[in-house]
């Protein structure tokens, strides 16, 4: 019984020559696994990069809008200030002309 068992073990564990192309198949499988793992990493990196780019774009757009709004409000302020100054100087001219046209006058024409 024990001899049979020993024999069976020997038969099972006897060195067996690999089939032809076994090494190539193993190497190909390993390479495939590696490339699959690499492509998984690449996919994750791509997703992370795309997400970062989208986030940066959203942030950039928001920043641009904030800056644009600041510029717009500043431009509006300047426009109103410019119109105020223009009106003020036109008023000075108008008042001077008005004073000149109705005596007594305190505007001295210097050849004008």
């Amino acid at each position: 019984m024990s001899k049979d068992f020993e024999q069976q073990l020997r038969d099972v564990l006897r060195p067996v020559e690999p089939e032809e192309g076994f090494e190539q198949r193993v190497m190909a499988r390993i390479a495939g696994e590696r490339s699959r793992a690499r492509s998984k990493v690449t996919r994750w990196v791509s997703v992370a990069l795309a997400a970062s780019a989208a986030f940066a774009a959203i942030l950039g757009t928001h920043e641009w809008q904030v800056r644009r709004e600041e510029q717009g409000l500043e431009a509006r302020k300047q426009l109103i200030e410019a119109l105020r100054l223009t009106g003020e100087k036109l008023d000075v001219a108008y008042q001077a002309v008005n004073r000149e046209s109705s005596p007594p006058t305190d505007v001295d024409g210097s050849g004008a």
Partner: protein
Amino acid sequence: MNAFIKHSLILLGALSLCTSATAAEGQLKLPEFGGLADKASEVVTITLDPALLGLAARFLDPAKPEDAAVREAIVGIKGIYVRSYKFDEDFAYPRADVDSVRKQLTAPGWQRLVEVRSRKQQQNVDIYILVEQERANGLAIIASQPREFTIVNIVGSIDMRKLHELEGQFGIPKLELEQKNEKNEQKK
């Protein structure tokens, strides 16, 4: 001469002109006034090119009457440039710089509409318009006093009637041109 000035000012108030000229026309070359900012007690430097004017217009609320009036007033305007300096002492600014702007206004097309020389107040105000093909394509105001000077250059077609509508808003003084004009007409 008085009548000429008065009528000129009324004409200025009634100017409602349009133009297809480029922004560069009517734009004065304003000096840098480099060192003046340190000497001045108050500085106003406004440079509104067509892009900035457009941007400013977008921030005027059409629902607000005063903003709508400003929007209307700047239709046709392609640029507004203002340099205004106030000082704590007399003639701290180089009058040559101001004169250099005045010189530019001797170029063909520019016409002096109003000239005010007040010895008592030592105040000079000159108002010029750029007339091209019978159309006003620019406005220049040079106002100087011993302690301040202001140069205003508006490029493009200027609808003074619309500008007039802004009086009393945003601190823009009331010119009361029409009322005074009516009074003058009544006097006559």
